[in-house]
């Protein structure tokens, strides 16, 4: 057995009779003349719980808004709907026929760049088309 286990943790000290009643009275009467310093909490400390709640709510709102924007199907309105050419043509103004439309769209698709043609080739082409040379020079 350990030596400390042989000795009970008993209190070997004594106090005078009715000591605690008397000392309590002394303490209370001594404090009667002294104003306790009640620490006034700073505004930040008072507001801190409310600020924490407000910050949490703001974070939740932002997360919720982000989730709605990302995951809801109706919110993907920036994407163009898939539509067939036929459907597109039907929705186009009535006085434009499909062939004209195809030509205009086709030319845009087929010729991404204007082909390079030199001046001489242009003049030769115009000559072949029986356009008067003088008229060409007047325009230049």
């Amino acid at each position, binding site marked *: 057995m350990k030596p400390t286990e042989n000795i009970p*943790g008993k*209190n070997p000290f*004594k106090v005078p009779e009715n000591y605690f009643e008397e*000392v*309590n009275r002394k303490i*209370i009467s001594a*404090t009667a003349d002294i104003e*306790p310093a*009640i620490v006034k909490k700073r505004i930040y400390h008072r507001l801190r719980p409310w600020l924490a709640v407000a910050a949490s709510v703001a974070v939740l709102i932002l997360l919720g808004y982000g989730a709605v924007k990302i995951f809801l199907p109706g919110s993907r309105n920036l994407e163009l709907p898939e539509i067939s050419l036929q459907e597109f043509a039907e929705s186009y103004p009535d006085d434009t026929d499909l062939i004209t439309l195809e030509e205009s769209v086709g030319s845009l698709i087929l010729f991404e760049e204007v082909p390079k043609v030199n001046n001489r080739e242009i003049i030769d082409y115009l000559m072949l088309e029986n356009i008067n040379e003088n008229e060409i020079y007047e325009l230049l």
Partner: protein
Amino acid sequence: MIRLLKSDINKGFRLVVQRYSPKLYWHIRRLVILHEDADDALQNTFLNAWKNIGEFRNESSLYTWLYAIATNESLALINKKKRNSAVSLDDLGNYFVNSPEGSTWFDGDEAEVKLQNAILKLPEKQRIVFNLKYFEDMTYEDMSKVLKTSEGALKASYHHAVKKIEKMLGGD
């Protein structure tokens, strides 16, 4: 108790004094040993508590807060006594047995005198830790709040204190 302190500070403080004065007295007494010193330190503890009563925030911290004040008061008194007193703490074991003045408030048997002498030979911090654990069975969690020391360090401190005391008692 905190609610009462907030609603009626005088009534609340009276309740605090009634509830804690015996516990704090015995804690102080084991550190300063003499009744007169313990009496002074106890009154100073409650005066300081009263002056700074706005510092504690909830019920669980009131107990450790009061113990911390009591410990500081005791250590201040011990240091003051070391400078001025003719009787040093190391000699108190013999003082209890031999002096009529000392033996008035001490009724321990021979084993308890030996134990007190061994405790008095411990370094200050170990002595406080040993007293709080051995006599008051304070949890390390509360002790760490009182002494502002980590629980691991307190466990190590108590372990060393017990080993030293066992060695001292075993050597007699």
